[in-house]
């Protein structure tokens, strides 16, 4: 049995990738999660300048629906400083994907070019953060912009470009098509869903930024649907990376069957013992593959589309 998976030209030891924004500000936590057994890790989304992000409360859990809501925004130290974290990750041979964001082509370019000399795996363009005014959704819901940014970035680097899509959208195909036309090497779906919680006693939205993004178990059926649709339409054309609410090895399988070549895990890893969770994921994937007599991950990809 072999857990290796290919996303275009990239081969990972298994399909688990740490999602951007989760434990992704320090080389040390990224390294820790990789060492727990992940196939790769993605950095917190990085931009040009240092940003402190949105005020607290900016992340909390919703016990009832096993989900989290966050409005961290794009807190990051800027690419110049973040280079230092990357260097250590590369030295430690951690397969690293760098998530970058910007408000326009120039901003994306500066970040990309400022990091591209380092030999990490690839870039993930965050075109889908719901927690900022200018970047993220404003960019990621405009097919023309998505096309242009993807194309320009693709010209500027020899590394693969993954495009992370927003679920807060009417027509995902339009955006996906733009990304593909622009030369994306993989589509990543989904980012968080725009959401809000109001405290009825203080009569205030709880998040400091008021609005936030919903992640975790609540969004898994939504993520599965996006991945299934994308695979049905573009499965022959481009690999898909599934994200959203994965909390077990079986959820990983569900995303693979929907059409993902690999998955990203965020909220589920934010617990006391991430190492145990990773082990459990891997065990469950192996158990399933053993029981179902599946030899390799590739046999599973898109497996729910056969009929």
């Amino acid at each position, binding site marked *: 049995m072999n857990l290796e998976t290919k996303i275009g030209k990239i081969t990972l030891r298994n399909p688990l990738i740490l999602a951007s*924004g*989760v*434990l*992704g*500000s*320090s*080389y*040390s*936590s*990224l*390294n*820790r*999660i990789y060492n727990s057994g992940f196939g790769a890790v993605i950095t*917190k989304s990085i931009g040009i300048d*240092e*940003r*402190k*992000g949105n*005020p*607290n*409360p*900016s*992340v*909390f*859990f*919703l*016990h*009832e629906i096993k989900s*989290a809501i*966050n409005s*961290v925004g794009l*807190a*990051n*130290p*800027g690419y110049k*400083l*973040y280079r*230092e974290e990357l260097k250590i990750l590369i030295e430690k041979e951690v397969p690293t994907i760098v998530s970058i964001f910007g408000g326009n082509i120039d901003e994306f370019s500066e970040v990309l070019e400022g990091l591209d000399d380092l030999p990490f795996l690839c870039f993930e363009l965050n075109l889908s953060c719901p927690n900022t005014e200018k970047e993220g959704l404003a960019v990621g819901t405009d097919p023309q912009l998505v096309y242009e940014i993807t194309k320009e970035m693709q010209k500027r680097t020899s590394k693969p470009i993954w495009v992370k899509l927003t679920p807060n959208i009417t027509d995902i195909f339009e955006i996906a098509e733009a990304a593909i036309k622009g030369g994306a090497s993989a589509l990543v779906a989904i980012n968080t869903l725009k959401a809000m*919680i109001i*405290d009825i*006693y*203080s009569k*205030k939205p*709880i998040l*400091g930024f008021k609005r936030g993004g919903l992640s975790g178990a609540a969004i898994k059926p939504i993520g599965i649907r996006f991945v299934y649709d994308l695979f049905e339409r573009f499965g022959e054309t481009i690999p898909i990376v599934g994200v959203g609410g994965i909390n077990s090895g079986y959820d990983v399988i569900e995303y693979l069957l929907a059409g993902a070549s690999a998955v990203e895990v*965020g*909220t589920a*890893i*934010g*617990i*006391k013992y*991430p190492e145990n969770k990773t082990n459990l994921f891997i065990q469950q994937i192996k158990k399933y593959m053993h029981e179902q007599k599946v030899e390799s991950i590739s046999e599973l990809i898109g497996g729910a589309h056969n009929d």
Partner: protein
Amino acid sequence: MTKYFHNSKPEMCKIIKIMEENEDTRTFSIKLPFTPKKPKPGQFVMLWVPGIDEFPIGVAGIKDQILELCVAKVGEGTKALFELEQGDLVGIRGFFGKAFRIKKSITHIIVGGGYGMPPLKYLIEEIIKGRTEQDEIFVFEGARTKEKLLYVELLEKWKKEKKIDFFPFTDDGSYGKKGFPTEGVKEYLNKDNEKSVVIYSAGPEKMMKILFDICKNYNHIIDIQMSLADRHMRCGFGLCGACVVDPEGLRICVDGPVFSREQLEKMDDFGNYSRLPSGKKEEI
């Protein structure tokens, strides 16, 4: 049946009492919606001042439904908290983090300062409760001046009752000895090195780092437990990564805030670097 606080959205609780500890430190007694599984010394909550800010505060004590939080006014969030009055609501998430592990039949050396003192006060209470004949408790507290020393009355009372021994230090000598509590600890360790000792500390990280460097050389110190708090937090439950320390990727909020000697030894950031909300590394 034990009830738990689940890790979920802030639980809204009423402030039922506010006590002035000193010029810029107050103890807030907060009524929880029920009697929860008891938090342990070293654990903390995320305290939400509605509409303003949320920040980590250590548990300073708990009795049934009444949670005690002792807060120093340092910035915007804590300032807003100080503007609240009895009857106002705050949000509580928790209880988070690893607690101090109380060893038995041992000499307990407790070293603190600043807002490290509230969890230590709770720790001392718990050690006293469970103490045996063999347990000895030495408390070293430091502060800039007399006014800044926390819980002096209480600690002096416990000293009088022979429950603990208490050694206050001030930078200016306005109370207790002049100098740093770390010096007092060193002196003690040099004097008496027969009995097994556990060091518990909470306070400014620089102070703890000095203490750690002193203590690691003594063989009769069987454990060093230090609570790190000079870190920005967001989630409190290990998801966001705001509170990570290098190079092991430990998170103050769930792997700590109380760390063991082995963990601290490998923690290059300890006493040296913290991270700003942006993730930028900064010298402490």
